[in-house]
């Protein structure tokens, strides 16, 4: 018998509330299927299952709050399942994207968001969709969920817990390097000129690709500090810090970024940002980042000196791309530059290695055509 347990979807999660099951007893499931929706302090997350088998019993009920590691369901493994029942059930469908505010309001009004046709971006269900549905068919369901202000407070508490732990436990070192971006900027402008607006690539995507490529030679920055030891990761899954319009942030992963073609990476980034803001992230995206990248350039800051998200051991920051004075061969001119920064965990790496990583990152951005 296999126990399907509440996953840890980040260092700031101690427990999760089961919102709904996407499967029922007797259903066959396979690795990677979406089987449940779990609400964390930061987001409602589509939870994937990592074993294949047949659902024997759903132990937790919607509305139950379960500690990380607590049993949600029991499965029979493929070898235990009677042949007659092992026939594949329809795969769990991806739910509609639903903005966190809309999901919250729907619960307060007793509206079933899964039955709504969304009018938001990419069919996501918006607050207005919920309000319209509530007017059409007012439901008497009690307001069991906390108001939006409490939800925001819960997110702040989760961020506070993770960041306080980080600053308490992780001896950070900080480095920064100003990187000339004329070549990268010119290359990307030419690259985008040939593309329709929907196919354009943002500088942020090129920077992510460069970070992932540079990390290939810096395993001491890409992994986890667990049980008093460093555990490097063989995969490079970049957590991308995404601010949410209602406040707070999430940092879900794009998987295997170093291997993704640039166009695919851009699509993955756009999709991740859209789903993060619509409240439709997957559990593997929340639990898998091996390092995080934050880009605050759009907000106009010169540089970011971010806090490491435990148990990761490094975080990379980018400030705004802007023309700045640049001295070369005794001449001062104006050059488009960006300040890249690194916060590293001194238990896992030293400043010397961090500095070499930033130098490698700068070098990669001088040859943007190799980052496709």
């Amino acid at each position, binding site marked *: 018998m296999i126990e399907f347990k509440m996953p840890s979807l980040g260092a700031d999660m101690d427990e999760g509330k089961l919102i709904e099951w996407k499967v029922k007893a007797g259903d066959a499931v396979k690795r990677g299927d979406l089987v449940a929706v779990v609400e964390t302090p930061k987001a409602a997350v589509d939870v994937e299952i990592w074993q294949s088998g047949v659902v024997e019993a759903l132990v937790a009920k919607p509305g139950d709050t379960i500690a990380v590691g607590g049993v949600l369901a029991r499965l029979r493994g493929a070898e235990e399942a009677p042949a007659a029942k092992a026939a594949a059930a329809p795969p769990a469908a991806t739910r509609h994207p639903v*903005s966190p*505010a809309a999901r919250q309001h729907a619960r307060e009004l007793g509206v079933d968001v899964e039955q709504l046709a969304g009018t*938001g*971006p990419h069919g996501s269900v*918006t*607050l*207005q969709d919920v309000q319209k549905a509530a007017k059409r068919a007012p439901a008497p369901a009690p307001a069991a969920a906390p108001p939006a202000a409490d939800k925001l407070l819960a997110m702040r508490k989760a961020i506070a817990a993770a960041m306080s732990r980080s600053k308490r436990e992780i001896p950070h070192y900080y480095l920064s390097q100003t990187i000339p971006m004329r070549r990268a900027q010119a290359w990307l*402008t030419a690259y*985008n*000129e040939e593309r*329709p*607006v*929907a196919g*354009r690539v*943002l*500088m*942020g995507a090129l920077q992510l690709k460069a970070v992932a490529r540079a990390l290939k030679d810096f395993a001491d920055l890409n992994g986890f500090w667990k049980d008093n030891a460093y555990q490097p990761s063989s995969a490079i899954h970049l957590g991308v810090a995404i*601010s949410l*319009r209602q406040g707070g942030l999430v940092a879900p992963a794009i998987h295997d970024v170093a291997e993704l073609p640039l166009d695919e990476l851009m699509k993955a*980034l*756009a999709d991740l*940002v*859209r789903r993060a803001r619509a409240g439709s992230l997957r559990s593997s995206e929340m639990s898998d980042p091996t390092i995080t990248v934050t880009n605050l350039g*759009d*907000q106009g800051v010169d540089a970011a000196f971010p806090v490491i998200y435990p148990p990761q051991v490094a975080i990379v920051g980018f400030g705004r791309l802007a023309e700045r004075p640049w001295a070369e061969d005794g001449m001062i001119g104006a050059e488009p530059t960006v300040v890249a920064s690194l916060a590293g965990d001194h238990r896992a790496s030293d400043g010397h290695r961090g500095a070499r990583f930033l130098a490698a990152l700068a070098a990669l951005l001088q040859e943007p055509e190799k980052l496709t």
Partner: protein
Amino acid sequence: MKDSNEIRKVVLEELRRIAPELEDVQAAKPLRDQVDLDSMDWLNFLVALDERLKVEIPEADYRKLGTLDQIVAYLAAK
């Protein structure tokens, strides 16, 4: 030349789709000072305008699109 009022309506609809919290927009003031739009929001906004108004906006023209009035005038002239 397209109808400016219709364009303004579409632009505001798409802005509100990206930033639902948006209330009044001061048409002559820089848009990105009034609305918290990052690069991805901006790109999504332009993709939506492209889809609805069938207007391709080259990157080189982004600097002409600072205010709501400028966006409407640019799109009307396309």
